[in-house]
């Protein structure tokens, strides 16, 4: 019983880790997009 419960919890944990990884990637992508903007405005500055 305990092993089955732990199996279920472990699946939930792994799914949660995956969701967090996806969130981190999305944040990274948004940050990268704004950083690309920064490159553009440096060209404007020059």
């Amino acid at each position, binding site marked *: 019983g305990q092993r089955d419960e*732990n*199996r279920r*919890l472990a699946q939930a944990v792994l799914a949660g880790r995956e969701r*967090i990884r996806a969130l981190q990637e999305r*944040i990274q992508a948004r*940050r990268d997009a704004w950083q690309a903007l*920064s490159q553009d405005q440096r060209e*404007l*500055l020059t």
Partner: protein
Amino acid sequence: GMEAAVGEMKDYITRFSSECRAWDQLLLHYEDTAKEVSRPREDAQVAADQVDPAWYLETSQSEVLSSKPDYGQIVSGQGQVFDCMELVMDELQVSMRQLKAFMDDSTRLLQKMS
């Protein structure tokens, strides 16, 4: 030729003003919101149980337990994102200021020409 050039200058200055206003609003929004969001939530700092590998290696989920990521680092890593965004916004602010200075000079020139 002079009239055409002056007309073109006015046109650019007008359009630049409109664009600069949009960027100013963006920078304002950033200043209003960045500090609040970069502060970690009170409940984000959940005390992590120090996992001693000795006891879980014999359990059925030892693989999952041994590969646990550092959630504290993940949360604190967001600080780097906000630092990066601060840099981007600072540079944008400098650019907009320089652009406005250029526009002001151009406007003065137009006034002088007229």
